[in-house]
């Protein structure tokens, strides 16, 4: 019965929530029960995936592809504001829940192995389950507020998971940074909601989108403001300029977390939001240009930083930022399907990359642990030649590298190509898009380069781990490699989702998303390119990717590397890149420190303590006391003086009485 499966939609988020509750209880009461924890943690995800799949299948059978909204209870019924706790399944969220539960399940599985020896095992799974719950709320929410529950919730879980090993200050700091930066974006989301409510009187997706065209004149200031505020939210959640800085720091969390949250799911929320609100963005060309422009710029900017990072996960982090930039370029251009497509493929190969990196780190960590060395298990300068010890990992990661670089016929090729083509095509209408396209191409070159660099330094050349440790390096157990293999498969085949007509494909995903994107597409019709141009673009892109890979292979010398503790400091541009363009330092100097200084030295110590409390409050008390003291000094005890005052009083009274 398709209907009943759809009715069970609530199970999709409820299962991970149940997992959280159970695992959370276990974490607080019996942290040692790892078997039960694994069973619950992974089990609920698999069940959720099954429920999601069932719901999607049931949904697919429905005619027309209209969204299915399930209302559970009135959440915020206040006057004309009627927010239900409601879930909405449409074709966009269908894709998302499958990705989230599917990739999520794999990552859960991987974590069973990766986190096996951690004392916080139960807590970890509790958080992970909670994260999946919130992510599902985000994508299934039928209104902005419900989506916002997930939106902030994933930020929370990100915070908890990044700071998972909270006894290291750096981890706790990173978690806090993630939350606060996300919050800045969230305020944008909030304000956008306020504006929408003020303008349309509702916050349900259905109402808002159907009223949007009638309410907002295209290109008007109001809709531009709304979309820009929404996009501010996206920059926070999806780590775009200027709010991207939390993501690299987020690598302090356990590696599967990086894979799940900071590659596959949470960071794509912004892309999802823009796609979801395609109608609104279509009405605001300026905002769309900002989205695309920021996306392109971020893609390029992050790629430059990735060039010089040594921490394997940081390279991947900047790579993620860069790839998210592509997605925004896509959705900003109006190519929503392309953006979502890249979102999906990216989640495959980036999860693969992260889990692969996790596998490497796992191995390195074990090796160092066994030898009681204190070297950095994530620094590529300490690796090298690992393909011998970790053959599966190496080969799977190579697949992902090629995919992210955009080589055919891997998943990344199709999705990235579509975005770039769409951007180029848009250039015909609005020339600025040519610049975006150029930045995208440049970023693609850099992507290929730094990914190859990562692979070279990690898996090729001589091993720099150290004599003792080398013997302990070995491939991870099946629970970890298994998911890798699965993801590898998806990376290989994922492109099939949306093969363009150019290659004889049917653009399945595009058509699947049609009901969702139709309204936006009507407002902002895609520009058709000629076959020849398309071919030229495709070939150009492939050539650029190949150039990047070959360039890296030719220019980089893994043999010349020395372990991290022996490495000389960077100089020149390399140092600037290594220092991430000093953006963190800039923020610190321009925002963080002044605010702290202002709060502490001015607001608290001067305004609060001195001015309000000291001068006004205690000041009046002191003044009263001082006046009283003066008065009591007048009380000299001498009658002579009293008489003087008395007579003065008499004169005053007479003066006043007679006047």
């Amino acid at each position: 019965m398709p209907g009943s499966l759809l009715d069970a939609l609530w199970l999709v988020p409820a299962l991970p929530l149940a997992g959280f509750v159970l695992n959370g209880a276990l974490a607080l009461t019996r942290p040692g029960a790892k078997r039960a924890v694994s069973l619950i943690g992974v089990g609920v995800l698999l069940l959720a995936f099954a429920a999601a799949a069932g719901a999607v299948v049931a949904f697919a059978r429905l005619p027309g592809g209209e969204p299915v909204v399930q209302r559970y209870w009135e959440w915020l019924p206040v006057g004309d504001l009627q927010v239900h706790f409601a879930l909405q399944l449409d074709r966009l969220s269908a894709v998302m829940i499958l990705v989230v539960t599917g990739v999520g399940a794999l990552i859960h599985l991987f974590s069973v192995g990766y986190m096996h020896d951690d004392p916080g095992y139960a807590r970890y799974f509790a958080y992970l389950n909670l994260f999946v719950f919130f992510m599902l709320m985000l994508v299934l929410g039928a209104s902005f507020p419900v989506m916002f529950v997930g939106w902030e919730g994933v930020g929370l879980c990100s915070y908890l998971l990044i700071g998972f090993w909270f006894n290291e200050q750096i981890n706790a700091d990173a978690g806090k940074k993630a939350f606060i930066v996300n919050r800045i974006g969230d305020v944008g989301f909030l304000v956008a909601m306020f504006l929408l409510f003020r303008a349309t009187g509702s916050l349900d997706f259905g109402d808002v989108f159907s009223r949007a065209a009638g309410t907002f004149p295209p290109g008007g200031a109001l809709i531009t403001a709304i979309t820009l505020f929404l996009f501010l939210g996206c920059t926070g959640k999806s780590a775009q300029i200027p709010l991207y800085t939390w993501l690299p720091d987020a690598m302090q969390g356990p590696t599967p977390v990086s894979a799940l949250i900071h590659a596959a799911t949470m960071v794509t929320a912004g892309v999802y939001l823009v796609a979801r609100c395609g109608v609104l963005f279509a009405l605001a060309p300026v905002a769309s240009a900002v989205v695309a422009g920021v996306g392109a710029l971020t893609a390029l900017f992050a790629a430059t930083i990735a060039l010089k990072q040594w921490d394997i996960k940081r390279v991947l982090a900047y790579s993620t930022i860069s790839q998210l930039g592509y997605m925004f370029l896509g959705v900003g251009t109006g190519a929503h399907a392309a953006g979502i497509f890249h979102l999906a493929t990216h989640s495959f190969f980036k999860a693969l990359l992260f889990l692969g990196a996790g596998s490497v780190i796992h191995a390195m960590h074990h090796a160092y642990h066994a030898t009681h060395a204190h070297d950095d298990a994530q620094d590529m300068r300490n690796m090298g030649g690992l393909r011998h010890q970790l053959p599966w990992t190496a080969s799977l990661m190579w697949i992902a590298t090629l995919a992210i670089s955009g080589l055919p016929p891997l998943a990344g090729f199709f999705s990235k190509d579509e975005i770039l083509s769409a951007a180029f095509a848009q250039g015909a209408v609005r020339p600025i898009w040519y610049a975006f396209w150029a930045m995208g191409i440049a970023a693609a070159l850099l992507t290929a380069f730094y990914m190859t660099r990562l692979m070279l330094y990690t898996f090729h050349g001589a091993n720099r781990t150290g004599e003792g440790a080398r013997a302990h390096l070995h491939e991870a157990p099946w629970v970890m490699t298994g998911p890798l293999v699965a993801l590898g498969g998806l990376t290989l085949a994922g492109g099939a989702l949306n093969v363009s007509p150019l290659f004889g494909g049917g653009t399945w995903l595009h058509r699947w998303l049609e009901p969702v994107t139709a309204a936006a597409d009507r407002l902002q019709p895609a520009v058709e390119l000629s076959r020849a141009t398309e071919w030229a673009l495709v070939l150009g892109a492939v050539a650029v990717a190949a150039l990047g890979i070959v360039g890296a292979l030719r220019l980089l010398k893994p043999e010349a590397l020395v372990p991290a503790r022996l490495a000389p400091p960077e100089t020149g541009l390399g140092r600037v890149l290594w220092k991430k363009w000093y953006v963190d330092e800039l923020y610190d100097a321009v925002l963080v420190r002044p605010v702290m200084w202002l709060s502490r030295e001015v607001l608290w110590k001067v305004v609060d303590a001195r001015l309000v409390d000291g001068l006004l409050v205690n000041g009046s008390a002191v003044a009263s006391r001082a006046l009283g003291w003066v008065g009591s000094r007048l009380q000299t005890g001498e009658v002579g003086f009293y008489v003087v005052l008395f007579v003065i009083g008499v004169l005053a009274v007479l003066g006043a009485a007679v006047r």
Partner: protein
Amino acid sequence: MSGSVIIFWAFAGLAIGSAVFCITRRSPVASALWLVVTLFSLAALFVVLDAQFIAVLQVLVYAGAIMVLFLFVIMLLNLGRQAATDIKGPLGLAVGVALAGVLGFQLGVLRVAGPPAAILLPPDAMARAAAEQGMVGSVARPLFDAYLVPFEITSVLLLAAIVGAVVLAKRRL
């Protein structure tokens, strides 16, 4: 200018002059004696103002009884010698004179701001009353009639004062 006016101003001058001496003499005894002069002058003024009985009382009670009591205490406490600190210093002096001067100025308005004309009796009303009822009778009659209650209060007042003075002054407590 009639004779009574001349007498009035003469004794007024004497009263004010001796009052000035009273407050400026360093010796308490001298002050007391100058005060007696003032009181006598006032008695004379009372006569001019048709209050002969009061003038007699003034001499008997004030100059005769109260001032003697003062002098007695002064002598008892051996305060006859003048003390240098008995009058305030220059600052106190200036302030005192200034304040009293202002007060005198303010009260000086009374010279012109007398009672409203509507309630004034003819100038010789008192003299005629005294002539009709006798010098004592004109005062004594209201005292025991309209002013009986205050009169009785004075008796209690004097009794209380005696009790108080005894309590404070008696040797053993």
